[in-house]
């Protein structure tokens, strides 16, 4: 080929690339919405603010946008991602460091399109792939709520991302591949309550952000919705037909869990779910039930085998005084203590049984482990977190307290204990690499911030089941 032809082809290639980039930038570029003065808070309708508060509770805005020891909504919380650490921003109405100069239009655009006021693309750590579903009306309420918070001057640290991810324009590409913009559309074949639940769960609730697995580029796998995921060092269990719960969830039980943070046949919310359920206290009861309705429908009708297995687990949920030998019943439990040479059995009998077999009702008593979803889950991550660090006491509110055992159980002992629990209390195959995972957690490689059951919630004063007498 002649030199000029090569040049011509190269030229055409360059033009193509430039045109491609041009098209890309044209698609990706977003205009800046001019800064506006903060709205006069007294002119904002209090009813709108109240609605916004309830919606913000479902969206869990305060959870990401508040750092430990920091002011609410002032940002600065580090979010570890596989790509680097992203810091949440200040969404108080501070004019300089917060969103005080954002107009309502800018706010709605950020929720709908994932673009900030200046036109920069936002990292999907801010789950606009869910928030895009939120209606304009609801966004207005959220805007009203946020604009009436106390302005805090706080600059979030810079994100720690490698090149080229630190160039926001790149996100436009991600959006082209994975982001579908648009308000929620009702499914006419479903009830109003189901639709409400779908709208909340997939929208503000962004449940899939934790409960759906992600691909290599960090996007949720659309064909594996609610198949389970991980969040901040905790397993977010599958909410579809693969739900590992021993007793299948019902709308009633899931509503109770969401509204209270615990459920007697399933467990206690203790990782990132703790503030979610705590925030649900501020939402209406109807909303919790709507979400539960939707999620249970995603789980689908449990098979007769699953139902029978759940019933068997309930029968065996032990109700006997602590320290007493657990009697074998059927195949699922074996006698605890001295007769077994299993190190895990001995540890369980000595350290765990006195609370977990005491018969004291959840949430204050130890959950019978054959009912705990964690016993059946795909990885031992959650039980490891709880065994090592316990459940801290809520601040000034009733709630379960569990001591942590990191000081007395070494990695091998935790592994033995977990193997025993898995084998004795579930019918699932043994977990793999338990000891490695324990070491991993203990080394702080997982960011397992243990939360107590608190932040606006309160376990009930009068559990319906009776307590032990001594």
């Amino acid at each position, binding site marked *: 080929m002649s030199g000029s032809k090569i040049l011509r082809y190269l030229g055409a290639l360059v033009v193509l690339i430039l045109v491609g980039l041009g098209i890309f930038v044209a698609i990706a570029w977003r205009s800046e919405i001019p800064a506006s003065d903060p709205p006069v808070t007294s002119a904002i309708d209090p009813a709108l603010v109240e609605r916004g508060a309830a919606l913000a509770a479902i969206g869990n805005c305060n959870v990401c946008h508040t750092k430990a020891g920091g002011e609410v909504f002032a940002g600065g919380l580090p979010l570890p991602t596989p790509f680097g650490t992203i810091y949440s921003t200040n969404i108080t109405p501070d004019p300089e460091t917060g969103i005080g100069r954002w107009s309502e239009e800018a706010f709605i655009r950020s929720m709908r399109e994932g673009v900030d006021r200046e036109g920069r693309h936002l990292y999907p750590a801010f789950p606009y792939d869910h928030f895009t579903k939120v209606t304009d009306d609801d966004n207005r309420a959220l805007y009203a709520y946020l604009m009436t918070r106390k302005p805090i001057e706080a600059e979030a640290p810079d994100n720690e991302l490698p090149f080229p991810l630190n160039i926001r324009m790149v996100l436009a590409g991600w959006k082209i591949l994975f982001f579908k913009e648009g308000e929620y559309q009702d499914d006419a074949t479903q009830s109003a309550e189901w639709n409400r639940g779908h709208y909340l769960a997939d929208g503000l609730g962004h449940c899939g952000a934790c409960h759906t697995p992600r691909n290599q580029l960090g996007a949720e796998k659309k064909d594996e919705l609610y198949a389970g995921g991980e969040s901040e060092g905790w397993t977010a269990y599958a909410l579809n037909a693969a739900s590992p719960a021993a007793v299948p969830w019902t709308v009633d039980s899931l509503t109770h869990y969401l509204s209270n943070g615990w459920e007697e046949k399933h467990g206690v919310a203790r990782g990132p779910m703790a503030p979610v359920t705590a925030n649900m206290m501020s939402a209406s009861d109807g909303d919790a039930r709507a979400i539960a309705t939707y999620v249970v429908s995603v789980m689908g009708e449990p098979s007769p085998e699953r139902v029978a297995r759940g019933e068997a687990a309930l029968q065996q949920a032990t109700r006997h005084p602590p320290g007493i030998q657990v009697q074998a019943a059927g195949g699922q439990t074996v006698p605890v203590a001295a007769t077994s040479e299993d190190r895990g059995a001995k540890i369980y009998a000595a350290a765990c049984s006195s609370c977990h077999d005491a018969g004291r009702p959840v949430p204050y008593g130890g959950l019978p482990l054959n009912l705990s979803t964690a016993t059946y889950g795909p990885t031992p991550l959650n039980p490891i977190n709880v065994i090592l660090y316990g459940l801290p006491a809520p601040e000034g509110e009733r709630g379960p*307290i569990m*001591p942590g055992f990191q000081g007395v159980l070494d990695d091998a002992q935790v592994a033995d204990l977990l193997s025993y629990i898995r084998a004795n209390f579930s019918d699932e195959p043994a977990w793999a690499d338990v000891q490695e995972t324990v070491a991993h957690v203990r080394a702080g490689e997982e960011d397992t911030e243990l939360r107590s059951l608190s932040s606006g919630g309160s376990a009930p004063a009068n559990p319906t089941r009776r307590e032990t007498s001594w």
Partner: protein
Amino acid sequence: MVALTVNGQSHQIEASPDTPLLYVLRDELGLNGAKYGCGLGQCGSCTVMVDGEAVFSCVTPLLLLEGREVTTVEGLGTIENPGPMQQAFIEEQAAQCGYCIPGMMMRAQALLQSNPGASDEEIRAHMEPNLCRCGTHMRIMAAIKRAGSLMQTAANGAAPSGATERAG
């Protein structure tokens, strides 16, 4: 028969393996520091250190302690020769009924051993599992800070710094 070390001394303890360490310390070994407050891991009166980590001795069964090193408040010094933590608590008069105090001291010791310059926020967060009903918290905070300062100057070999600010 479980072999463990308590305050530097080896012991062979003959007791049922599920006996909580608290009763081993108090009954088998006659040590007074660790106290029964709840037996449920909720209040911290029983706090001791095992291999340098603060634990609730009331929920730590003997069988887990094979070959481990337990430290109680008696291991921090004596009445004739108090260690820095004890010295600090005496100087700050950080006790009312005093029942929770040994647990507080052991909990604090575990923190200060690795971080003698711990900040107020760090101390508060670390001490959260321990309860005090008399409301002596302010003096306990002051004593812990004082202990940290005493430990730091001891490590540096310098003379201890002046008294910390105290309320009242």
